[in-house]
């Protein structure tokens, strides 16, 4: 089976899945009576609608190739960094490091990935960004909460640019005997991370009782995590044929993605709590901001990238 055949089958599968979800959403909207039930179903349907749009965007960018897919992720980094910085109390003296983050480091990171310069794209932000940004801040001479301000910008960049960019960096991996199959790895990562989120939400809504971290994220439950996590691991095993992994290895990889994704969701919930907000933004209706959808992926991407690169290339 050629790469294009596989991608076609995969996207057809996603379309079938979303079609079923839309149908269920429609039936539920007919049956919901109570006020809270109605609100939940409306939110569910808004989410499903947004999923259609997101899937369409991904399908088109995959079809148009590596350059466009990288652009899509660069834009994702741009919007998530914008959401992060917008909610972070920056001061006028942070202007220069922000200019460097948005207009220099972000494009540079994706350019380095596009020319496959692995040695530099893995250290650009953690090393050179780390040295450059506080220097630019210090030049302005504003020492008010200096360390806090510098760390916030560095952290935002690591999360939204460095971590997220490791997802499309999968396209640069050369797996022996499987040229160009980075798209399948990327598909695997995104699908498992998002499927895990969705199934955790579904299991949480249906059976959620025991809260895992009531202070940080009241919606995360043991039942949701177990049900959603197991579904995603099973889905990962079932997708082994698109990867260089055996079914068991694919399940283990999916487990790593689920575990990191869960931790990402938890850590970013804590960040949101500390800022006193519920969502990162309002760009994707029903979901909140872009970062609300990317939180798990941002934590899972570097780990999945390194595991694959270390063991399979």
């Amino acid at each position: 089976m050629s790469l294009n055949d596989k991608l076609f089958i995969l996207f057809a599968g996603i379309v079938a899945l979303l079609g079923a979800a839309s149908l269920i959403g429609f039936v539920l909207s007919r049956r919901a009576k109570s006020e809270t039930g109605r609100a939940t179903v409306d939110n569910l349907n808004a989410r499903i609608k947004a999923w259609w749009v997101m899937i369409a965007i991904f399908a088109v960018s995959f079809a148009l190739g590596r350059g466009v897919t990288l652009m899509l992720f660069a834009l994702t980094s741009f919007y998530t960094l914008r959401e992060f910085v917008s909610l972070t109390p920056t001061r006028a003296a942070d202007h220069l490091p922000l200019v460097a983050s948005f207009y220099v480091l972000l494009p540079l990171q994706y350019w380095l990935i596009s020319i496959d310069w692995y040695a530099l794209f893995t250290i650009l932000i953690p090393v050179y960004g780390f040295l450059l940004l506080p220097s630019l801040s210090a030049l302005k001479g504003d020492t008010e909460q200096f360390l806090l301000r510098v760390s916030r910008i560095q952290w935002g960049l690591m999360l939204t640019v460095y971590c997220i960019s490791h997802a499309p960096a999968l396209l640069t991996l050369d797996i022996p005997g499987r040229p160009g199959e980075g798209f399948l790895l990327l598909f695997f990562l995104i699908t498992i991370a998002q499927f895990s989120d969705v199934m955790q939400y579904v299991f949480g809504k249906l059976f959620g009782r025991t809260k895992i971290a009531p202070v940080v994220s009241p919606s995360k439950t043991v039942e949701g995590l177990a049900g959603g996590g197991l579904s995603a691991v099973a889905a990962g095993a079932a997708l082994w044929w698109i990867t260089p992994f055996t079914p068991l290895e694919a399940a283990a990889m999916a487990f790593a993605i689920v575990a990191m994704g869960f931790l990402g969701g938890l850590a970013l919930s804590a960040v949101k709590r500390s800022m006193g907000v519920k969502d990162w933004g309002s760009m994707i209706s029903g979901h909140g901001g872009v970062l609300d959808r990317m939180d798990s992926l941002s934590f899972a991407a570097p780990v999945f990238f390194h595991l694959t690169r270390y063991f399979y290339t």
Partner: protein
Amino acid sequence: MIDLALIGLTRFIVGGQAHWMGSSPEMRQRIYFANHSSHLDTLLIWSALPRALRASTHPIAAADYWGRGAVRRHIGLKVLNGVLVERSTQGPPGAALAPLRNVLCEGESLILFPEGTRGSERLPGPFKSGLYWLSQEFPDVELIPTYLDNPSRAFPKGTFLPVPISCTVRFGPPVARHTGEEKEAFLERARAAVAALAPEPIG
């Protein structure tokens, strides 16, 4: 063409979502008056208005900024429909308001920054008296307080490039006129109406 490009760029970099909180985007003659903290402000309010309203709404632009340079002048006057005002005019009170009166006499709306200059605080500083004179002379024009959230962070004074930080434009309920109200009391009430729209500071 240029207007769509400008709106697209504004949306991309700073968002500029409109929140109508107590008034709605209607075809009425209005003065939108807002806090002023960056060169983005005019563009933000202008692009937050629906297209139909935009055509009949004229931002007041300081001649010493928007009148300078062919490109800026073209954008300020032709694209944004701006009215250039000299900031340093001497003379009787309200003399500098002549171009604004012309706009209101023609039944069109205005965007005004009554602080007169850009500040860097979250809440607006004291208002200059232009808003008071105009509100007296044109009693039928609705006065819409407008709060711009974040442009001072996206494009602070003294910098050359805006950074991507989401800004919002909040339109409040119209400010009523009280008969016999003193100028200072009115201006303070108008200022408070803008400040009341500010969201809680983050952090």
